[in-house]
C-alpha cells in the first residue's frame, strides 16, 4: 500500500483502474442500456459490458508491459469488442493515450493529463462532436480541462483525479437539457432533451473509476 503522497500512476494502477471500470460497468450496464433505450437503441450497457469484460481478460491474463502497451491493448480490446459508436470512440481514446505515453512505465499527473487530452482530442477528431452535442465529449472535455488545470496548479494526483471525476460528472449531468446533435439520439430532435446521455454517463464512470481505484490503492 502506498501513501497519499504517491503522485504517479503505475502500470498496475492503470490495470486496477480498468478492472474497477469493468466492475462499475457490470453494475451499471442495465442503467446505461435504459438510458440508451430512451434516446438511442438500447445497447450501450451491453456494448460497454462486452468491452470492459474483454479488457479485463486481456489485462489480467496476459503480461502487461509498459503503460503505452497496456493502454494500446485496452484500446484494441475496446475497438474489437464494443462495436457501435462507442467502441471506436472509447477505443480511440485509449489508442491515442497509448501513443501519448509511449514506453513510460509510470505517469505523473502532468503526463497523464497530457495523455488524457490527446485521447479526448482523438475522440473529437474521430467522432466530430463538439461540446454541447450531447455526447461523451460533454463529460470528457471538462474532465480533461479540470485535470490539466490541477496538474499545472501542482495539485496532488489523487485530488486531481477527483476533480477530473467531478468535472466529468458535472458534464454528464449537463447533458440532460441538451438536444442531441450527434449519434442516434440526434434523430429524436427536441425529444432528446431531458435525458442523460448514455455515453457521457459511461465516460463519467470511467473517470470516477480511476479516481476511486487510485484512492483505494493509496488509502
Amino acid at each position, binding site marked *: 500500500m502506498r501513501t497519499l503522497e504517491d503522485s504517479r500512476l503505475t502500470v498496475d494502477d492503470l490495470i486496477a483502474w480498468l478492472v474497477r471500470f469493468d466492475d462499475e460497468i457490470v453494475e451499471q450496464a442495465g442503467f446505461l*442500456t435504459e438510458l440508451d*433505450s430512451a434516446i438511442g437503441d438500447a445497447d450501450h450497457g*451491453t456494448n460497454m459490458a462486452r468491452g470492459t469484460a474483454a479488457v479485463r481478460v486481456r489485462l489480467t491474463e496476459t503480461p502487461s508491459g509498459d503503460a503505452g502497451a497496456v493502454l494500446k491493448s485496452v484500446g484494441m480490446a475496446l475497438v474489437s469488442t464494443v*462495436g457501435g*459508436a462507442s467502441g*471506436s470512440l472509447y477505443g480511440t481514446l485509449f489508442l491515442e493515450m497509448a501513443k501519448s505515453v509511449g514506453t513510460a512505465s509510470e505517469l505523473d499527473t502532468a503526463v497523464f493529463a497530457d495523455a488524457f487530452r490527446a485521447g479526448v482530442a482523438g475522440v473529437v477528431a*474521430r467522432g466530430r462532436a463538439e461540446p454541447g452535442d450531447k455526447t461523451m465529449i460533454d463529460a470528457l472535455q471538462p474532465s480533461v480541462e479540470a485535470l490539466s488545470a490541477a496538474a499545472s496548479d501542482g495539485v496532488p494526483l489523487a485530488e486531481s483525479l477527483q476533480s477530473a471525476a467531478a468535472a466529468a460528472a458535472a458534464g454528464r449531468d449537463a447533458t440532460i437539457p441538451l438536444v442531441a446533435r450527434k449519434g442516434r439520439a*440526434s*434523430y429524436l430532435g427536441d425529444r432528446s432533451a431531458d435525458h442523460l446521455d448514455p455515453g457521457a454517463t459511461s465516460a463519467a464512470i470511467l473517470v470516477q473509476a480511476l479516481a476511486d481505484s487510485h484512492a483505494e490503492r493509496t488509502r
Partner: protein
Amino acid sequence: MKKLINSPATVLADALRGVEAAHPDVSVDYANRVVSRGADVKQGRVALISGGGSGHEPLHSGFVGLGMLDAACAGEVFTSPTPDQMLAATTAVDAGAGVLYIVKNYTGDVLNFEMAAELAAAEGIEVKSVLVADDVAVEDSTWTAGRRGTGTTVLVEKIAGAAAEEGRDLAAVHEIATRVSENGRSMGVALTSATVPAVGKPSFDLPDDEIEMGVGIHGEPGRKRVSLRPASEIAEELVSSILADLDFSGAPVIALLSGLGGTPLIELYLMYGEVAALLEQRGITVARALVGDYITSLDMAGCSLTLLRADEEMLRLWDAPVNTAALRWGV
C-alpha cells in the same frame, strides 16, 4: 420477451450456424462473424463488403453471393461490427482490384468502417466507401448525425454488385454505387417496437392506437407519433414524404416495400397496392418492385418504403443475375 433463441448472448453465433447450414454456398468465419462467398471469388474483380448491426436480416448476410456482396460483417444486434471484423472480411475477399465498403449512415457504422479502411490501407488494400443516407424522415440533417441509411442499401448492394460482377474497376463501381445512393429515398412506419434480446423488453412504448411515422430500423423515433390509421393514409404519408424530397418525375422507379420483421406478407402486399396506386396517380412508373422482408428491425411490426430514381443502366444492372439467400434471379 418471447423469442426462438437459446440465450441473448448467443443469438448471433447461433444464427450464423443456421446461415451456414442452410446455405452451403457461403462460408462463415465465426471468429470474425463474417459471411462470405465461398469458392467463387473471381481473381481481379472488385469486391463488395457491407455490414452492420444484426437484427436487420436478410440484410446483409442474405445478400452475399453472385452479383451482390462478397462479404457481410455481422455486428451484435443493432450494434455496428468492429474494424477487425471488417479488416478480416477485406483481406479475405480482396482480389487485388480493391474493395468497396457499403456503409449505412449510423455513427457506429461510419466510425468503424473508417477505422477499417485505415487498417486496410495500412495493409496496402485499396478501399473506397459509399455511404447510404436515404431516410427522409430525418429532416434536419445538418443538426443530426445525418440521414440514416435504410432500404436504399439493398439497391446499392444489388446494382453495385452487378457492376463489380461485370468487371468494372473500383472507381466505376464506386461511382454507380454513389449514384444509386444519391437517388434513393426511404421512409418507414412502426406499429410496434422491436425487442432487443439482450434488453428483454420493447425498446419503446407505443400505445395500442398509435404508430411511429418515420421510424428508423433500430426503433429510433421518426417524425411524429400519430394515431393508427388506414393503410391508404399511411401509404400516402410515406409516398408524399419521399416525393417531396426528390423529384421522381420522368424516370423509371425501383420500388422496395420491406417489412420490418413482424409484419405478415399479406399486409405488405396490401401496403404495396396502396403505394402503387398513389405512384400511378402521380404519373410515376414503377419499373421494378420488391415486396417482402429485406431490411428489418427484429420483430418490429411495420414497413418501410424505398424508391430509387433509376436510369437505364441501373435497371440493366438490377436485372443482371443474382444468386444470394434472399435475392435470386437469372441463375
